[in-house]
């Protein structure tokens, strides 16, 4: 029975690795300037974790196979080098491996989170609420008007709580239900939560960031491929969580300018 277990472990390990090696289920193709670094980090980690996984499972299986057959008079053998060798192996092999992953991984993280957006990044505000995203562009004045939570009204379609009567900066703000951005331009995304926690996840953009009620956060990224992509919520926000989504449309600069004009006319 031990031998069957050994074979089963090896079969499970190999079968488990096949979809990874064949890329059967991959994330949507990357469309961002920073995503390559994340994907590279992912591949390196997959290689190291994959080797560790296969090597450990196969070794476990081999030991089970070999050391379950013994005769009563057999003596116990000690692993060459004993515990000391194994502790050294863990520190040297895994320690070096994880330290390398950690150090190299800093670069991708720092690019996304520890560098400021460039001065000419396009500001877009996104507000998350149960169970929809709304987007706001500052309009020709380049300035967002202030938010008045007490004025938020779904019924009046005042999703952000703008006071266009009194706040001059709000008058030209453009509010939309879908997000459009020009290709190859950096976007400075300003994130605001209306009610509970939500998240902004665009797998194709390699972006995920929670909305934190009471704390406005920001992100910056550049999309490099024209197309339509899904924005989904990943932070459990209530009964409609699964259906909280919007589309991100990456356009040419001209198309974006036209889109913005069209949306401005609809306000």
């Amino acid at each position, binding site marked *: *029975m*031990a031998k069957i*277990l050994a074979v*089963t*472990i090896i079969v*499970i390990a190999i079968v488990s690795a096949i979809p*990874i090696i064949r890329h059967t*289920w991959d994330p*949507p193709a990357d469309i961002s300037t920073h995503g390559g670094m*994340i994907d590279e*980090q*992912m591949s390196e*980690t997959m290689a190291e*974790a994959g080797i*560790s*996984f296969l090597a*450990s*499972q196969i070794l*476990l299986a081999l*030991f*089970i196979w070999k*050391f379950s057959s*013994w005769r009563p008079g*057999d003596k*116990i*053998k000690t*692993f060459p080098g*004993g*515990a000391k060798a194994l*502790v050294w192996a*863990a520190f040297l092999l*895994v*320690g070096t491996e*994880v330290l390398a*992953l*950690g150090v190299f991984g800093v670069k991708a*993280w720092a690019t996304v989170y520890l560098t400021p957006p460039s001065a000419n990044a396009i500001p877009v505000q996104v507000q998350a609420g*149960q169970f929809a995203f709304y987007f706001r562009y500052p309009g020709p004045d380049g300035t967002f008007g202030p938010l008045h939570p*007490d004025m938020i009204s*779904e019924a009046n379609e005042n999703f952000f709580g703008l006071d266009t009567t009194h706040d001059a900066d709000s008058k030209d703000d453009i509010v939309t239900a879908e997000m459009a951005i020009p290709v190859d331009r950096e976007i400075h995304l300003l994130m605001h939560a209306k*009610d509970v*926690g939500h998240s902004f996840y665009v*797998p194709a953009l*390699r*972006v*995920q*960031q929670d909305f*934190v*009620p*009471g*704390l406005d*956060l920001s992100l910056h990224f550049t999309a490099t491929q024209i197309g339509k992509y*899904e924005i989904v919520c*990943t932070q*459990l926000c*209530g*009964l409609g*969580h*699964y259906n909280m*989504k919007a589309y991100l449309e990456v356009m040419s600069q001209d198309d974006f300018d036209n889109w913005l004009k069209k949306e401005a006319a609809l306000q």
Partner: protein
Amino acid sequence: MHDMSAHAAEHHAPTSFISKHVFSLDHKVIGKQYYGMALAAVLIGMVLSWLMRIHLAWTNYPIPGLHLLSANGAPGNVMTPEYYLQLMTMHATIMVFFVLTTAPFAAFGNYFLPIQVGAEDMPFPHFNMMSFWVTFSGFLVLVSSFFVSDGPTLGGWTQYAPLSAIGPASGPGQGMGVVLWAISIALFCVGQLLGSLNFITTTLDMRTKGMSMWRLPLSAWAWFITSVMGLTAFAVLMPACILLILDHVAGTSFFVPSGLVLNDQLQPHSGGSTLLWQHLFWFFGHPEVYIAIVPGMGIVSHVLITNMRRPMLSHRVLVYSMGALAVLSYMVYGHHMFVSGMNPVSSLAFSFPTLIITIPSTVIVLIWMGSIYGSKLRINTASLFSLGFVSMFISGGVSGFFLAQPSIDIMLHATYFVVGHFHLVMAVAAIFGIFAGTYFWFPKMFGRMMDETLGKIHFWLTFVGAYCIFMPFHYLGIAGNVRRYQAFVDDYLQPLIPVHRFITIAALLTGVAQLIFLYNLFYSRFWGKPATDNPWEATSLEWSTPTTPPPHNNFGDKLPEVFHDPYQYSVEGATRDYVMQTSPEKVNPANDEA
């Protein structure tokens, strides 16, 4: 360490049914009560997972009889989106708290820790009884939330604020459901704090003559280390739950900031912090992962050693590694919050200890594997589940390499990759530890053997089934499949639905296989083959009791004296292939690490 023999006679056996079986002060009865509660809890949790899995695979398919559970939650037997989330929250809460914490730690620990240290009972039997009954009350409070008007909370077992703190406006179950959840968990924390105090004192003060700390079996070490973690982790979660309750019933705003609008209504809260909840929760939550798994490591080590007929390559290195896991577990909790809005520099600071914690984990795995090398491995159901544990722990562990890195977490956070990771490393592995412990200690607890053939069938179906369920979760996560969705409506998720169907079928079949275990458990309890005092030819003190099951005061009139390290197997020159801890027989000192 004390010679407690003078006190043995003071521990009178109870006479009435109530004091013997219900409000018992006997650690063994309390251990069995915890086991029974965990068994009831795991059955509920498993049925909830079946309902969730069927719904995920065939979303609008009616599940016959579901409306009986909740007419509002399943009109026409089809689960509503909110009911899915409510069942999911209950599944996770029941499993994490009332199964994974109680069975390997509170159940087996209660029964066997005092015996393994050579004591007649725990030092505070009344606290011990309270520990169980307070925990059980917490369980009843949690289950009662199924029966309140809008059902249990839908906020997930993590109960992130402000969804959890803002009240009924945020969704069904978010009023009374959350309050009951928080009361339940606060009670659970009180119960486990009382238990942890007892475990720590038992280990430090109740050891019998000759039982130095290094002569404790690895299972006893694991329970001791876990109880130290429990003492600090549950002490943080309990006040967090109290603050959450106050946000509901006293108009406070600990976790709710100002300016929030629900249903076009400005909420009357101000000044709270949503991230405060996450910090408090995960300061408990990550040690909780180790509270669930370290007892399993101890049990599996104990069972493996007996069946390898040799001690581990190094007893001390294993103990130090489990201790390192415990210490590091408090420094890594922020890896749950990489994309939470916490300062991104903090994410890097939490990333490194998370990567480093793989080192003691690897040491533990290598010591297990290096000890199998050259051993005389015996195959029985308990050792099969122990070997299965090692395999599962490796599989679940390597995915930790990914989740420890903030940059990769951008893609994998809140996806099924995380669900696959924690189910393998914490849930399935811990459950395998529980199974290994059950098959191994059942003869001592009930005086009868479990059926080995049924046990092996149970192992094979569970081992292969668990892999079929949880390995594909990783593929889903890599493809960006978000967790906690009741249906997959996004375009990019459509190709993944067949994978979900495969998982559901595997989950149902693996679940049915657990009925074999249940049958074996109950059948063997009454009609199993009578067990001898030491059926596995093991060495530690639980196998030296004068009767099986042990008498009320464990060792009869005189507490045992210990002469050896716990695991004297394949001893050269000994009369048998093992030497009991209580045997004064001289052994080869090379084998006596302590």
